[in-house]
């Protein structure tokens, strides 16, 4: 049963990682414009030289 010592923390760690990733994406506004992302990928002139 010593395997649990590795597996349980590993499982929880991965879960926490996903949670942290979601929180980051939420904070950086990635859910603010879901439709826009779908359309932006179709326009090819979005690389502009400023």
């Amino acid at each position, binding site marked *: 049963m010593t395997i649990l010592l590795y597996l349980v923390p590993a499982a*929880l760690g991965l879960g926490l990682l996903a949670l942290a990733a*979601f*929180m980051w994406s939420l904070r950086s506004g990635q*859910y603010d414009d879901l439709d826009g992302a779908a359309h932006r990928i179709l*326009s090819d002139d979005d690389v502009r030289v400023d």
Partner: protein
Amino acid sequence: MKIAVDYSSFLRPETGGRFNLEWAVEGVSSADAIAEIEGAFSSIPGLSKARLNFTTRRLTTEWTEADCDPSPAIRTLERLGYRVAPFVGDAEESEEDRYTRWLLRCLAVSGFAAVNVMLLSVSVWAGNVTDITPETRDLFHWLSALIALPAAGFSGQPFFYKALRALRQGDMTMDVPISIGITLALGMSVYETAHHAEHAYFDSALMLIFFLLSGRVLEHAMRKRTRSAAANLAALRSPVASKINADGHVSEVPSDALIAGDLVLVTAGCRIVADGVIETGQSQIDASLMTGEIELTAVKPGDLVYAGTFNHHGALTIRVSAAGSRTLLADIEKLIDEALTYRSRYVQMADRIARVYAPVVHIAAALTAMLWIGLGTSVHDALIIAIAVLIITCPCALALAAPVVQVITAGALFQKGLLIRSGDMIERMAEIDTIVFDKTGTLTLPEPSLIDASQLSNDALLMAGRLALSSHHPLARAVCEAVREKQKRLEPYPDTQEITGSGIHCVIDGVEARLGSPSFCSVPAPLWNKNASVLAFRYGSEAGLISVGQSLRPDAIETIKKLKAKGYHVMILSGDHADIVCKVASELGISEWRGHVLPKEKCDLLVAMKEQGHKVLMVGDGLNDAPALAAATASLSPATGADVTQAVADAIFTGKRLSPVFDMLMLTRKGKRVMIENFSLALIYNLIAVPLAVLGFVTPLIAAAAMSGSSIIVALNALRARHAETFNS
């Protein structure tokens, strides 16, 4: 006259010395829009960022200096067929945004915790029937507790706060049994874990929170979408006032920012943005939004004009009057307040069920405990069974039943061009049996439109449309709109010249083209017609008359026919002259109508109908309709209606067609039917699960399966609300 447009009053300072300016954009429909709109702004000096949000239809621009001039970009966009207006966000909307984000965070935490605890729970369930040692099981239970307690404490907050508020007010909502269920499930599980028991309900508690939160997140996302669309409409409709400063320089300011004593300029073809007294200029104004009458009123210096009226002919300068003297609006607002008290607070189905449901299950749980103690079981076991009853009856499916349907129905309505203010109007709208229409701007189009252009060839009409593009005159706009229906993209001619009061002309391929009054185009004027204005177009030797006026919405006749076929009682109450109302009524086949109705009378008539037991839907756009909208069972207003009117209406419909009224009624009817099905499904689940729990058969495994099963069935069934018989089907 060239007006220097100054948008600086809309700029909001950002960190780093930058300024933010947000715009509402109309006409965004394809992927090209993003490149076109952002591209139009990109060449403007002083701009550091322009990004279009496709979901909210808003463009955020960031500037490095405060004296920016975005007007070239706006002109480019208007030529491409977009409409843009500076947008000022309101506090309520950003508050709602923050709340939605908080809910999402709660949802993420409960989702993470539910999945991980379920991982541990499944191991325990599998171990219980094979060879798990009590020590490993305890370890797993304690690990679950370690995850579940903080996670539930964090993500359960939306329910706990609401339940506390409800209890403090002596009210009963679904949040109360939910909070009790979650707390008891967690408390009992900790107690059982401490006593090395086989079963713990950590997973059930977390799953419950997760399912319920998903319902709430959806509900808020739906509300956010319709709310932001409605806010955009408001920004586009009466966005800015042209304020004349002391030095004679004209700047654009939000119309809300005007104060009494300000001088504003209203050009021909614009809505008057504030109540006031005319200082200079003469014109004819259309006050149909206030009175329902379509005849134009002549105004001169010294006359009082109201916000929302439409300036047809000449430029006016208006001295904004003090808020206290807004007599008409003040009267209407008093009527609205009175009318709102008639609209008795409608109790939603879910709340009505909650009021009965919560006491019933709590009594059932108490009886279960007493029954088992009476049968000789230990107090501990009896309490465990009683708590299992509470967990299994925790109204997961019941609490999801209505919100999920509301979300689906609101989404379907949104696609039909209807923006609803809140989900609870669906139940009220579904009960409607009588529909009362206003005439002007509701059954008819709000703006004058092209009635007849048969004297012109298609090519000539196209030219007239392109020429009209350069004018802001309402009649020119009507020609433009009509041509746009045939050809979406219209290019204006360069070097057009407008002669105020006569028309517009330019030279195309060496030949002069004119659009304007018949005399301006040297076309013999026809006999005077009360219901239409006449324009003429001349290109070389080709010439003809174009008549423009009030016309019915394109699908009005068919919509009314369909509504009558569905058994709705339809009538017209209008503030306009009886003979005009009569003509429209006979055209639409409506036998019951009344003209010259005052706002107060409209309201009283609706109240009388309601007292006879009718459920009345009021559809209207004018300020004179607002009290009636407030008094009706449910109300609907076109997006072109007056601000006050839209604020009172349950829903707003966009576009030129009347069919949204039909779609609204059909979709809400279907929505309510599905809601009732959902409540029945949730109750059936309880009828099966509760006896099992009372008899002591419910293990955590069964609780988890039953709870998620019933929630998923309810959510899937809600999807059916999307499909209702609509106008086009």
